[in-house]
């Protein structure tokens, strides 16, 4: 296996004053910290991509942070996660070390996938993160199989499976929902409905745009959720995950959200109005949470700045480390095509 960095300290509020805050405030601060971390990480990616330091396809999550952060609250450390090519957020909140994620962006051998995967293919066995899958809908069958294995082995894990609205058009989506429901497997289907499959609006690809309704037709509990409201996401996810864990079979969350940036790093954006983007930005998940915290008196004036400073410092360190990290020697090109011989 490739050398890995030890996972960083598990996401936790670290500032001393927080200890004095009530639990709700501390919890909200942590949600905020995670969303800001995702946001700043991706903003850095834009910069690094533009500077030619990272390459390939890089799909940004900006605007959708509340989904990953909220759903993750409902997951236990032992649960499994199957993700998509827009998975930086999922990976970050899962606790995969920031340095190893950044190193992966750089294609360095210290990256979480040994540098082989890049942005679209983040993997981490230690957190049961089964990877960014870059074939739309390609992850769903894996999630069904992971859940099947858990069931057959008597484990009580939940497998959280992220996918976008585009996947709903694929045959695999329908095959997998049916199979999971038929066998009552412990899968939490998390559909990140950001309204566009690359450049094709949901309404131009689907007759039934109410995706929770479609899932319900396969006989599983399903809800639409405001994916811009991290607290709403958390609440729905906790409810669904508990039900799945309790043997209630697969559940489906349609997390209605919006990506503020292009499908990949840059695209012509000919398929949606600037006004629409602006409108959604009015419900920026970070702004919604900070407003809520301000109203509740949970946010002091300097808190946001302090958070930004803290996150920026982490990122600066991660980038510096990634730059300095080694590349896999070319001699290692064909490693990991087959498993090593048992010794």
């Amino acid at each position, binding site marked *: 296996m490739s050398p890995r960095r030890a996972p960083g300290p598990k996401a936790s509020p670290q500032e001393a004053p927080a200890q004095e805050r009530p639990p709700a405030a501390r919890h909200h601060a942590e949600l905020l910290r995670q969303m800001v971390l995702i946001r700043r990480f991706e903003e850095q990616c834009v910069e690094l991509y533009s500077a030619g330091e990272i390459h*390939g396809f890089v799909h940004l999550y900006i605007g959708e942070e509340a989904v990953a952060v909220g759903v993750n609250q409902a997951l236990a450390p032992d649960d499994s996660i199957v993700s998509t090519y827009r998975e930086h957020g999922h990976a970050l909140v899962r606790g995969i070390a920031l340095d190893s994620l950044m190193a992966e962006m750089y294609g360095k051998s210290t990256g979480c996938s040994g540098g*082989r*995967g890049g942005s679209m293919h983040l993997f981490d066995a230690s957190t049961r993160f089964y990877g960014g899958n870059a*074939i739309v809908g390609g992850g769903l069958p894996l999630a069904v199989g992971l859940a099947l294995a858990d069931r057959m082995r008597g484990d009580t894990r939940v497998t959280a499976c992220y996918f976008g609205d585009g*996947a709903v058009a694929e045959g695999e989506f329908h095959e997998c929902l049916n199979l999971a429901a038929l066998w009552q497997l412990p899968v939490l289907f998390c559909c990140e409905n950001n309204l566009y*499959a*690359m450049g*094709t609006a949901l309404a131009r690809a689907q007759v039934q745009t109410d995706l929770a309704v479609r899932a319900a037709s396969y006989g599983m509990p399903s809800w639409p959720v405001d994916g811009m409201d991290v607290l709403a996401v958390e609440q729905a996810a906790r409810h669904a995950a508990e039900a799945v864990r309790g043997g209630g079979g697969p559940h489906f969350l349609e997390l209605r959200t919006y990506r503020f940036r292009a499908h990949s790093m840059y695209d012509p954006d000919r398929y949606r109005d600037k006004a629409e983007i602006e409108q959604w930005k009015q419900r920026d998940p970070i702004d919604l949470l900070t407003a809520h915290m301000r109203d509740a008196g949970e946010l002091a004036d300097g808190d946001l700045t302090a958070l930004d400073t803290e996150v920026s410092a982490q990122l600066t360190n991660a980038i510096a480390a990634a730059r300095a990290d080694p590349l896999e020697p070319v001699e290692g090109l*064909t490693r990991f095509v087959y498993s090593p011989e048992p010794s």
Partner: protein
Amino acid sequence: MTSAAAEKTTYREAIREALREALRRDDRVFLMGEDVGRYGGCFGVSLGLLEEFGPERIRDTPLSESAFVGAGIGAALGGMRPVVEIMTVNFSLLALDQIMNNAATLLHMSGGQFNVPLVIRMTTGAGRQVAAQHSHSLEGWYAHIPGLRILAPATLEDARGMLWTALEDPDPVLIFEHGSLYNMAGPLPADAGPADIRTAAIRRAGTDITLIAYGGTLGKAVDAADELANAGISAEVVDLRTLRPLDDATILASVRRTHRAVIVDEGWRSGSLAAEVSARIMEQAFYDLDAPVQRVCSAEVPMPYPRHLEDAALPQVADIVTAARQAVG
């Protein structure tokens, strides 16, 4: 009197122009695929066609490869001339069942009653650091399937000219566009027309060794020939153009002249198109060979993300030169 002036264009624009011409010439022709309309195509090939031809003929589809490729087969059976775009060859695997089990077999299964005049275009190949689910060269797999015609345009003329000829073919034709070629620029005569899709082409004449390439590796083979020329080795470059059925005559005639061959193929070596070409040379020109046939293929590894590993995995000019020098001795 003089032939039309050459205009500077790109591979991408040449394909777009070919689509435009086909859509104008034959109202049975329509384009269908993921994001071909509003988005203008994942690689910008169909930009502007929606505005010109409308949503009936430039059809955005859901991400349902099996469904829309299969629908293309049905529409072809029903009298239309569909052009189906699949974003990348990796995604085409979601439609492999339809391509293999329907498109390629219907004519035969029906005893010749139902032919499928369908054209499927897709992007293939690596070189853009998009890692192991967007980078492969699987055209060799498709070239394994009887009933399909497989094309790999490597030049602007072929990008411009192969589509129409493919549409005139009564049977399914798959066109593989190498992703690294879309920005290739150069002059193309304004009156460039349909291109033959039956023969290989000699892109550069030479006497000492034949470099056989196609699609994304043609440019590398030509560059290698340049380097070899500097070393006093005259390399002939054959562009396969049509990967199935292979134009044995051109390949063999060249090898019979030069007595040596290097096959450059971005597919993996084992079971590759290069293996097929090599086998045919062995079978039919064995006694003209003065050195073992060499293959320069991709390393047998899913495509890695970092640039240096991707470069190492792909056939490079230096590899071709080395193989050629080894063959020439």
